């Protein structure tokens, strides 16, 4: 430190910091709590990372490797620890992957900060230097990155597999990675080529089979069976599909009403009227040529009754009921049709067309598939299968991460090596840069550089390798100019990681570093916890 201050003699007076006991205690407590959170997820980093089993308060069990999910379920109370949980959520929102990495980096940064604080450096100085270091880090990463074309399907698949390799479902990465790539590419709108709305990709989970049976469906999948009540059709070719938001059941008014029945003949008449009423509606539907009905769930009254189902079956109309209102937008977009809210507006031009609507038995349940849709909107559906609910849920989370990875690549078309290579390279370059800086800043940047080594260190540790040997070896290789040398966890040695096809989107790495730094800076600046209403 003496050497650092010598360059700028005045700074010794300005940047030192005397803390009083209470503030120091609070800061220490915050940092310790945040590090405890980081330590909890540390072991799940990397392809050989372990999973965590979480049993929630309501007795549910979740097994996952996804940092965001683990932290989300941890129910931490300490405010600083909570900030780390939020940090992982932000990373999830920004990049979708790297949720564990971001927390691990934040933990390592905090550890270094504690050291700096005990040396008496003012927290705002640390905070400012961290900011500078992170901006520099992003520059370094961007310089390392390899540009990518969206047409390069191979590279996209590679990066999706890197993300999937660290998950429970890693053995299926050869299946899931192309699937993720295809589904994202199919929803990219040519008008806005760098925007992907993941809501256009619907994930349907169905128990039974294995993850191997997971498939991409060009069309729609409903996780419910067609209505069988009256032996209606379950397969329809050349389907004309209507999405209706009204009900085919006896009328019901908003005003409370009651029908007064005074004798037997009247009762008969009422029954007949009801029948005619429904028949009238179904005839109207039939005249438009519609043969598949998707009926929105209704809370006010039954969407369909046994009677109407019976008539619909007679009219050879396939019925899928209880479609959620939230799904309507997705469905209408996919089918390229309009929802119909009133029987009066039931016209042929509002229908959607598909080559085949069919009910398929899967395991113990049934699903309805709509394929061969005419003028299909830019949406896609993925049907996930698995032998038990835990596997399915984890597969969904992993697929979500993989989708996010591909999305990142679509919005920022750069790839970067994985396997700890970028972190070591950053550490090296920032370390060199810190020697040029004056005063406390240089000291803080050096700590930042050291903190980044935590990623390769943890990767090696989780893979059962000797972390110190690996990290020093890595440093050595990077110093010799092999900027893509990284840990090859499978072989347990250091290789050129780009050649091993371990790649990840640039956005994941840059956002991990900037978000972690921002969070650490916020924790550093806190000197008191006040209880309020």
């Amino acid at each position, binding site marked *: 430190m003496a050497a650092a201050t010598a360059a700028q003699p005045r700074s010794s007076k300005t940047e030192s910091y005397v803390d009083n006991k209470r503030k120091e205690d609070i800061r220490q407590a915050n940092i310790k709590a945040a590090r405890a959170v980081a330590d909890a997820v540390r072991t799940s980093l990397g392809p050989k990372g372990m999973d965590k089993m979480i049993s929630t308060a309501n007795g549910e069990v979740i097994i996952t490797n996804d940092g965001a999910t683990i932290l989300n379920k941890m129910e931490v109370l300490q405010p600083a620890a909570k900030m780390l949980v939020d940090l992982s959520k932000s990373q999830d929102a920004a990049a979708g992957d790297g949720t564990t990495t971001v927390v691990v980096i934040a933990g390592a940064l905090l550890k270094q900060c504690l050291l700096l604080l005990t040396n008496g450096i003012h927290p705002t100085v640390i905070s*400012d230097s961290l900011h500078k270091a992170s901006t520099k880090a992003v520059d370094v990463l961007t310089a390392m990155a390899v540009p990518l074309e969206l047409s390069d399907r191979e590279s996209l698949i590679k990066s999706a597999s890197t993300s999937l390799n660290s998950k429970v479902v890693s053995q299926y990465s050869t299946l899931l990675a192309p699937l993720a790539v295809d589904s994202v590419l199919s929803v990219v709108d040519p008008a806005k080529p760098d*925007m992907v709305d993941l809501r256009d990709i619907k994930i349907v989970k169905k128990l039974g089979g294995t993850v191997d049976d997971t498939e991409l469906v060009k069309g729609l999948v409903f996780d419910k069976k067609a209505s069988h009540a009256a032996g209606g059709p379950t397969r329809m070719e050349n389907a004309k599909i209507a999405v209706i938001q009204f009900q085919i059941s006896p009328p019901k008014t908003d005003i409370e009403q009651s*029908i007064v029945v005074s004798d037997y003949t009247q009762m008969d008449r009422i029954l007949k009227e009801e029948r005619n009423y429904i028949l009238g509606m179904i005839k109207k539907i039939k005249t438009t040529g519609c043969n598949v009905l998707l009926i929105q769930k209704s809370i006010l009254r039954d969407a369909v009754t046994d009677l109407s189902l019976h008539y619909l079956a007679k009219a050879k109309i396939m019925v899928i009921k209880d479609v959620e209102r939230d799904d309507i937008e997705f469905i209408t977009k996919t089918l390229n049709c309009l929802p119909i809210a009133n029987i009066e507006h039931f016209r042929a031009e509002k229908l959607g067309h598909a080559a085949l609507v069919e009910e398929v038995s899967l395991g113990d349940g049934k699903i309805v598939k709509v394929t061969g849709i005419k003028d299909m909107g830019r949406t896609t559906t993925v049907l996930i299968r698995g032998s038990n609910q835990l596997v399915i849920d984890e597969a969904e989370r992993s697929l979500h991460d993989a989708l996010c990875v591909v999305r990142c690549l679509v919005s920022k078309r750069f790839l970067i090596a994985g396997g700890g290579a970028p972190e070591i390279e950053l550490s090296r370059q920032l370390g060199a840069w810190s020697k040029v800086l004056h005063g406390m800043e240089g000291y803080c940047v050096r700590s930042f550089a050291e903190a980044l080594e935590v990623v390769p260190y943890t990767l090696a540790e989780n893979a059962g390798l000797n972390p110190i040997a690996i990290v020093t070896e890595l440093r050595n290789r990077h110093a010799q100019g092999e900027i893509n040398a990284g840990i090859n966890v499978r072989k347990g040695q250091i290789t050129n990681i780009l050649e091993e096809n371990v790649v990840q989107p640039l956005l994941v790495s840059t956002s991990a570093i900037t978000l972690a730094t921002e969070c650490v800076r916020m924790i550093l600046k806190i*000197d*008191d916890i006040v209880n309020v209403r």
Partner: protein
Amino acid sequence: MAIEKILKDDASEEKGERARMASFVGAIAITDLVKTTLGPKGMDKILQSTGRGHGVTVTNDGATILKSLHIDNPAAKVLIDISKVQDDEVGDGTTSVVVLAGELLREAEKLVAAKIHPMTIISGYRMAAECARNALSQRVVDNKENAEKFKSDLMKIARTTLSSKILSQDKEHFAQLAVDAVMRLKGSTNLEAIQIIKKPGGSLMDSFLDEGFILDKKIGLGQPKRIENAKILVANTAMDTDKVKIYGARVRVDSMSKVAEIEGAEKEKMREKVQKIIAHGINCFVNRQLIYNFPEELFADAGVLAIEHADFDGIERLALVTGGEIASTFDNPESVKIGHCKLIEEIMIGEDKSIHFSGVEMGQACTIVLRGASHHVLDEAERSLHDALCVLSQTVNDTRVLLGGGWPEMVMAKEVDELARKTPGKKSHAIEAFSRALVAIPTIIADNAGLDSADLVAQLRAAHHKEGCNAGIDVISGSVGDMAELGISESFKVKQAVLLSATEAAEMILRVDEIITCAPRQREDRM
């Protein structure tokens, strides 16, 4: 002869010395709590809610901290109130005002201990405050005439305000944002027209200013996603059937077809309402309440863009910026004022879709979209930006500008010191004390930055002994610097409000010689 009981059970009374002591202690405790947040190197606080959910807020804003404290000391409450008033009036300086009032009281405590009557102290403080204000108003810079210079003044003020907040790293960017937004207002202080939207994700640098208005809602199904020259009707009306709102009203019918008829009539009513709305000649309809499937389809058929379930705040602003009125009946199309804008379209912010109204009637309106790592960051960024906007809009009206960095306090202290020397009698002690309280502010700023405050303040005082000096504390280099060169400015209005309200609050607390605590109301559910 003892009087048995004057006050109710549990009510207590504290008199004279003890009462004054209690006020001093309370006020000083509050001051000590917030004083570490003062200045560019001030620290943040975590506010941990003891309510449900244990929500966490991280903030540097004095008003926010004080507002949420549990306080049982009457004098401390007075201080919290002045900070609130400061927040409402000028928006910034909420910490400074409390710190100054606290320091005034700290000085007063010493004087009271030296057997000077509180009234003497008060009159001394008053004279000092008057003198300090005059000193300030003589040294103001007013660039009202020169638009170019005035804008740079605004930028300086924005930067100074933001530098003590979370936005300090990106202060250049945000100062520009705030100045642009305020310049659009053209002198009005109606901050309603500036909408702030927070979207998690991205970094703070991704925040941007957008002309027009952004509504965080979705466009109904099957409706146009882009409308040019939109005529907008803003409404707050129920779009389901007009129910008879008498409890227990019911109709009796004797056949199913009658029920169908009633249902048909209900539908017809909805259709009529929609047609009435469409008859206003609009192509965009925004409702605060839900629009159900049926009317939504009718709107879609008519090619009208319908937005349902906009929040209260949203429609009020929308009505304001588009120049429309919120309607709830649609019988007289001519009496309803319809809003206009050039273009409505759907845009993506981060991952979410929003509806963007551009080219709105009220040209001042604009939207600032904040992006940031987490909700904590965004909330704090919003508070900081709000402070900056308040100060700027006040400065546009009162264009007088001062230097910052402890410069105004030193200028005032010097004048007040001189007044003390001229004033005969015990009052001069009070005036001197006032000057010491003023100097406390630069001292605290220096302390927070980890600097040697005693040394710096002494240097500063010496520098100010020369006429027309611009010296203040340069926290970054840790020395006395020229504030005009460093571009650190503050609004005169803020400083004046700090000075006057702090003096008033201190005076109010000093006058107290008895505290009567009323018996708390009994509550059973107390733990």
